């Protein structure tokens, strides 16, 4: 007897972690596994036109059929075999195990061109896997084979083993609006009234190309991803702010500022406009989606930051999100925005987002070399997990430590 999904998920619309389309849980489809069934029948494998069109996937796959998506298994009407392959009814991507049973958090990552989104995402996942996991007593693992192989080869190996900086991300226009997010399964124990219980969260990281935020038309290409995201990380390169750019450590590679590049303020405005256009957002209220405004490459400005600044302090440990430390960083970043004559960023965020936080991070800890390789003294990330932890805490996936916060 197939186990039914948790009823509390039955009424809540789900969002596919691959295509970010929303659908009710019962609409989840199934894909035949293509193996011979007990009746001796076997479905023919063929290219799925939906997968081909949306994901450029030309693999030979079993047929997709509709069934009660609230169940974990279904019987294929073609071969009468039982299948456990639950797929998105829109993009036909195989959904992670227990999708709909566990939390699914979609985190979109956008930012201005050359702000280092891909590097940041690579280092972030690496940090979660290798350092933060032990701190939070959590584990993160790829939710599907594609993410596993893509993250290992195209992201982690490239940066950490080959020491190569990643190339620019293809824009949605170039890739035919086919974006393949990296999907991970984040597991940790959450304390309960009696003991603790494992809690799993599906995380979908969507890395948008910077070019896609340079005009309203291109932003619209990513509208579905941003509009349906549970949390958004916006990377704004401080070196694209004229007030900070002149203070950068000599020798720091400066991002372009000519055609094809737009100011961080304008990028933020377009993202905000797109979110405001979402039917989920009331025009008379602030946007409720948590927005982490991340200023990367903070190492290039470290010499302008005082010794007592929270941006010079060690990253807090502990298994819960440190609210006080995060607020201190937020205040310090606001002070720096004023120092950089970029208060407009703060004003845009404050007036449009009910939940927002500023962060200063450094993914590499130093400058890449002139031939676009990782820093010669290694990758030394600083505070890269802060925005992620804040989003998880805002979305209820991890606990908060408010002891350092003013009551």
């Amino acid at each position: 007897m197939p186990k039914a999904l948790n009823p509390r998920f039955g009424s809540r619309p789900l969002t596919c972690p691959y295509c970010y389309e929303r659908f009710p849980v019962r609409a989840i489809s199934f894909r035949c596994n293509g193996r011979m069934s007990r009746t001796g029948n076997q479905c023919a494998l063929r290219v799925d036109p939906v997968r081909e069109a949306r994901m450029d996937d030309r693999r030979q796959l079993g047929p997709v059929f509709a069934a009660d998506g609230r169940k974990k298994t279904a019987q294929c009407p073609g071969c009468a075999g039982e299948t456990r392959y639950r797929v998105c009814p829109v993009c036909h991507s195989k959904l992670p195990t227990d999708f709909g049973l566990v939390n699914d958090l979609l985190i979109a990552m956008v930012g201005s061109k050359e702000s280092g989104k891909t590097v940041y995402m690579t280092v972030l996942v690496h940090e979660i896997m290798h350092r933060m996991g032990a701190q939070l007593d959590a584990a993160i693992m790829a939710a599907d084979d594609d993410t596993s192989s893509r993250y290992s080869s195209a992201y982690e190996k490239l940066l950490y083993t080959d020491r190569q900086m990643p190339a620019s991300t293809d824009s949605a226009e170039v890739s035919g609006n086919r974006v393949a997010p990296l999907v991970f399964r984040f597991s940790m124990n959450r304390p309960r009234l009696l003991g603790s219980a494992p809690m799993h969260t599906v995380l979908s990281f969507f890395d948008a190309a910077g070019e896609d935020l340079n005009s309203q038309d291109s932003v619209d290409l990513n509208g579905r991803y941003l509009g349906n995201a549970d949390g958004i990380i916006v990377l704004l390169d401080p070196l694209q702010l004229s007030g900070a750019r002149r203070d950068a450590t000599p020798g720091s590679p400066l991002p372009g500022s000519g055609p094809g590049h737009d100011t961080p303020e304008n990028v933020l405005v377009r993202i905000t406009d797109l979110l405001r256009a979402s039917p989920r957002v009331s025009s008379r209220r602030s946007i409720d989606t948590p927005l982490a405004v991340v200023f990367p490459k903070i190492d290039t400005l470290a010499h302008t930051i005082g010794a007592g600044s929270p941006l010079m302090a060690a990253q807090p440990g502990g298994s819960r999100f440190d609210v006080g430390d995060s607020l201190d960083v937020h205040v310090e970043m606001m002070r720096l925005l004023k120092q950089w004559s970029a208060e407009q960023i703060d004003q845009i965020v404050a007036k449009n987002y009910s939940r927002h936080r500023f962060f200063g991070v450094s993914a590499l800890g130093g400058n890449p070399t002139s031939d676009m390789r990782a820093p010669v003294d290694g990758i030394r990330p600083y505070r890269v997990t802060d925005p992620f932890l804040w989003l998880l805490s805002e979305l209820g996936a991890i606990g908060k430590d408010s002891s350092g916060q003013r009551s």
Partner: protein
Amino acid sequence: MTVYGIDLGLTSGRIAWSAVPGAPADRALVVPAGLAFAPDGAVRVGAADDQHPRAVPGVRALLAQGGAPRPGSPLSAEASVGTVLAELTERARAEGGGTAVEAVLAVPGDFDVAATAALRRAAESVGLTVRGTVPAALAVCLHYGAVDWGVDRNILVCDLGATRLELTVLAVRSLSVEILHSAISRIDDVEAADRAARVAGLVAEAARSVATVDVEDVLLAGAAAADAAVSRAIVEAIGVAARCTEPDFAVAKGCVRFADFGYVRVKDGRGEGPERRTPRSTVARHAFQAASTPPDDDPEPRARVVDDPDPRVRRPERPAPAPTPPAPAEERQVPPVREPRPSPSVVPPIPAMRPPMRSAVDAKVQPPPIVEGPDIAADGPTAYAPRPVVGLAVIRRTGSAVLSWQWPPDGPEARVHWRIGTGSNAETGTASVSRHAYDNQGGFSLEIGPRPAEFTVEVLVPGSAPSAQPPSSAVLPAPPTAVRYDLTLVGGRRKRMARFSFTGDVDCILPDIVVVYASGRYLPSARHEGREIHRVPGGPLQRNQPFETEFSFVGFGPGWLVCFPEESAVPIALHPVSLHRLRVV
């Protein structure tokens, strides 16, 4: 635990120890280093002028001359030495040396590896556990405190005994010591009145022999060095003052210092002359290594002093070890000529060292382990040698130091040594850092608190030739005196009080404090961005004893309350405990 430092001289043996374990040696005694025989044939440690035909005037010479017993003597060379060592330790115990069984042995300049091993075995045969062996010249440097972090000096050690003079020139670069030159000369053929001049002449000759460096310090050791005329003659000869503090026990007390000194790397930088019989290039030593007893045939690798004009201390030539690659392990077990193997009490010669592979950073204070590296070379073991690193940098993050450096492409592991704090309270330690752990941890971090710290880093790279360069070093100075302040708002809207508390890391003078109110969303960076609303008079502030002050705070809108210090003679760093807590609404 008390550790004996033992200096076996030609005519006298000296032992030193400390009444307080770990402290510098404050007790010492001397016994003759010869064997005499009673009429009934009983052996006793006695004066060298015993006329008995089997008497041994100095047992050390037996080892230096190849370990053959004195003709007619009932005791082997090792047993003879052991008898003297036993006498030394027994007397030390009787003099309040407790029940110590550990010892550090000084290795004279004319000892080769076999002689050193024999000395070690002799000590162990009388129940001593040898914590380590140390070249006598290095022991003298340790006695004078000439080896330390940040030291960069060229030192001439002048060990003046009753019959001969041992001169050693060393280059001290932090915790890396290179022996540049050594020579042994007879002086017993010189009249006492002319001895000082002869010593000065030999010192000047030794100083000139090392053309590449200038001798900056002269350290005196040996009983005869206490003669003030020697010091004066040296000053006149080379223009460098000679330091002379307890010279007769300098070696023995330096051995005690070595026991708890930590890491020091010794490199033999003397040229490969034709007379070198046991060429050794580098010996890495670590005082923490001595827990296990070495095998009987486990001599200390040590360069033999070669510039020895005294034919009496020469011994028959031995074939030098073949410079070819080492034979397979099975063959080395039964070599045609017994080759010394590295002792567990000493880090083995660098060419034979393999990088200890660990899963993560291990910051415990312990010796670098000698462990097979499982993944270093698929086709056989690879030798690794230390090299200084490029681009060593260290930054302070709250109470931690974060180190970074550039890894060579073929360096799988680095060694980090540190000293935290200053003076007698300084903490030293060492850690092996794999590149994998470095990459995953984002550098190497160490908790140091608000103290200064010094680090050296060297990376292990394939190869057998040790580097001539000392490890890379970096210094993290102590942070300025810091006072942290916190704001608490008390009361409601009608009557509000702002309460500030100031807490210092150390005892300090708190300067006058100006409290500034700034309205708006942004934290003020300077006084002029707000207006002064209160002034806190300065005064003494005791460590970790908060000083609190409060004042009325009514009628102000949302903004920030920030403290700025007035200028003071001793500037302090004034930091808020938490930035967001300075916000008032």
